C-alpha cells in the first residue's frame, strides 16, 4: 500500500500516483523531514519499551552464563552453559517444567471447552441473559490474589471450607483438597477464573456470525449439529485460537495462584514460582536467570505460533480498512 518510489508516507493526504516531481532535491528533503515527523510520535514509546523490557532480558542472558550466588559473591565466575545443564538435569527444575506444561495445557483446554459451551448457551435468548452473563464474568474480575485466597481458605479448607461443608451436609467424605490433589486444586481455581474470559471472546465470535448463511442452511434442511459443525465452528476458529493463545501466554506466567495456594509445595511449583524461589530465597542468580531463559524459549515457541494467528487477524483488519 505504500509507494516505494516516492518517500511519501501512507497518510492518504494525496494519492501517491499523483506525485510525479520534477524538482527532486527539495521534495526529497521535505519528504525526509515529513517521514521523521510521522515517525517521531512513535519514538518515546519504543525507546521506553526497549529500555525497560529488552535491556533487562539481555542482562538476564548474561547473568545466566555466570555461576553467581549472592551469598558467595567472591566466587562469581563465568560458567558458560553450566547453568543450563543444571536447569535441565536438576530434578526439581525439570519437574517444574513438566508442571508448567501440565498446568497451562489443562487450564487452557478445559476453560476453552467450557467457555465454548457457555458461549453457545448464552448466545440463545432467554430471560435474564444479561444477568447470567454478569454472574459468569465475576470470577474473572476478582483480583487474582483474592481469588486464590478465596479458594484456599474459604472453599478448600478441610475444616471449614465450603466444599467440605456441603459434603458434610450430604454426609460425604471430607477430603483435604490442597494436600490430596494439589495440582488439580490449583487448576480448578484457574479454570474457574479463565472460563469466563474464553466465554466472552467466543460469545463475541458467535455474535459476529453471518446469520443469513445459517438461515439459508437451515432452510436447506441442515440440522443443528450440522450447522454447528460446518458453519459455526469454522467461523469460531480464529476466536478459539485467539483465546487459546492469549490464555497460554497469561497462564504460563501464572504466579499468584501457585504462590498463594501452595507456595509451590507438593509438585505444584511451576517455572515462574521456581525462578522466584531460586533467586529470591536461594539467591542463585545464575541458575534463576538460566531458568528464566528457558521460560522465554518455551514462550517463544508458543508466541511464534501466536503471532502467526494474530497476524492473520491483522491482515483481515488491514484489508478491511
Amino acid at each position: 500500500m505504500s509507494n516505494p518510489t516516492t518517500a511519501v508516507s501512507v497518510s492518504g493526504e494525496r494519492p501517491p500516483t499523483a506525485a510525479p516531481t520534477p524538482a527532486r532535491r527539495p521534495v526529497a528533503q521535505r519528504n525526509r523531514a515529513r517521514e521523521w515527523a510521522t515517525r517521531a510520535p512513535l519514538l518515546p514509546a519504543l525507546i521506553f519499551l526497549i529500555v525497560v523490557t529488552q535491556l533487562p532480558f539481555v542482562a538476564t542472558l548474561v547473568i545466566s552464563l555466570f555461576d553467581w550466588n549472592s551469598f558467595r559473591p567472591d566466587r562469581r565466575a563465568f560458567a558458560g552453559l553450566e547453568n543450563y545443564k543444571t536447569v535441565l538435569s536438576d530434578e526439581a527444575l525439570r519437574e517444574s517444567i513438566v508442571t508448567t506444561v501440565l498446568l497451562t495445557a489443562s487450564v487452557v483446554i478445559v476453560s476453552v471447552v467450557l467457555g465454548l459451551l457457555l458461549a453457545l448457551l448464552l448466545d440463545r435468548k432467554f430471560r435474564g441473559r444479561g444477568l447470567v452473563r454478569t454472574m459468569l464474568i465475576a470470577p474473572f474480575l476478582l483480583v487474582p490474589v483474592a481469588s486464590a485466597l478465596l479458594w484456599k481458605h474459604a472453599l478448600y479448607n478441610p475444616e471449614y471450607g465450603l466444599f467440605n461443608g456441603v459434603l458434610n451436609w450430604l454426609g460425604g467424605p471430607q477430603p483435604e483438597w490442597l494436600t490430596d490433589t494439589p495440582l488439580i486444586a490449583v487448576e480448578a481455581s484457574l479454570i474457574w477464573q479463565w472460563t469466563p474470559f474464553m466465554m466472552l471472546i467466543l460469545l463475541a465470535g458467535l455474535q459476529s456470525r453471518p446469520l443469513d448463511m445459517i438461515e439459508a442452511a437451515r432452510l436447506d434442511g441442515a440440522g443443528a449439529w450440522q450447522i454447528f459443525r460446518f458453519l459455526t465452528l469454522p467461523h469460531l476458529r480464529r476466536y478459539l485460537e485467539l483465546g487459546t493463545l492469549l490464555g497460554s501466554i497469561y497462564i504460563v506466567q501464572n504466579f499468584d495462584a501457585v504462590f498463594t495456594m501452595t507456595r509451590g509445595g507438593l509438585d505444584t511449583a511451576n517455572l515462574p514460582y521456581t525462578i522466584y524461589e531460586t533467586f529470591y530465597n536461594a539467591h542463585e542468580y545464575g541458575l534463576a536467570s538460566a531458568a528464566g531463559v528457558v521460560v522465554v524459549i518455551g514462550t517463544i515457541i508458543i508466541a511464534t505460533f501466536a503471532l502467526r494467528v494474530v497476524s492473520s487477524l491483522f491482515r483481515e483488519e488491514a484489508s478491511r480498512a
Partner: protein
Amino acid sequence: MTAVSTPVPITSVPEATRRAKRRGAALGVLAWFIGIVFVLPVLWMLLTSFHSEADAATNPPSLAAPLTLDGYKDFFGVGGGASPWPALLNSVGTSLFSTCFVLVLALPAAFALSIRPVRKWTDVMFFFLSTKMLPVVAGLLPVFLFARDINFLDNVWLLVILYTSMNLPIAVWMMQSFLADIPVSIIEAAQMDGARLPTILWRVVAPIAGPGIAATSLICFIFSWNEMLFAQVLTGVVAQTAPAFLTTFVTSQGLFLAKVCAASMVISLPVLAAGFAAQDKLVQGLSLGAVK
C-alpha cells in the same frame, strides 16, 4: 447483533414450536444454573465477609448466622493491627500514574500507527506485542539488582515504571484499532477547512476515539491493580501494594477468615465495579482489539 436461534419449522408447526420452546426453556435454566455455580464462590466470599470469625469457620457452614461488619472493621485496623490504607493508597497511586504514563506514551504512538501510518507500521506493531510475550520472570532479576544498586527498591515509582512498560504494548494495540476506526476523510476535511493539528485532535479524533481510550485506560488500571509478582519482589514496607499486603497479613497473623474475605472484597471492589460497568469494552481490550 443478537442471534436468535429458534428454529424455523416448516412442517407440523404447533408440535415443533412447542418442542423447540421447551428445549429453549431447559437450556435457559441450564445457563442460569451454571451462572449461579460460577458466581457462588464470590457470593460465599461476600457472605463470609459479613460473618463473625466464629461463624465464618464452622462446618457445616452457617448460612443463617447474624451479619456483622467486624471483618471490615478488622481489615481497616479499627481494633489494632496494620492499617491497609498505605497499601491501598500505593495501589491507587501506582495504578493511576502508570495508566497516565501509558496514555501519554501510547497515544502518539497509536496516532503514528493508524492515522498517519509510518512505513512498515505492522512490524512496529509486532514489536510492541512481542515484548508482551517476554515472560515477566525473565527480566525480573536484573531489574531487582539494578534497583537495589541505585537504592530504588521499595519505591512506588519503580512499580509505576514497570507497570507502564507492562501495559504499554496492550494500550498501543488497542488504541491503534480504535484510532483506525476514524475515517481519514473526516480528518482531511478538517484540514481543508484550515484546522490545525491540536484542533483536529481535540475536536475530531477525541470524540470518536474517546470511548476506546477510556476502555484502554480501564484495562491498564485493572492490570496494574492486580499485579503481584513485581510488587512481591520489589517492594517492602513503604511501597507495598494491596495484593502484596493481602498475602502478608494472612501468613503473619494466622487465619481470620472473615477478615480475609472482607479484605479480598475491598481490594476487588474497584475492579468488579469497573468490569461490570464496561463488559463489552473489556473483552475488546483483552483480545487486543482484534475481536469487535
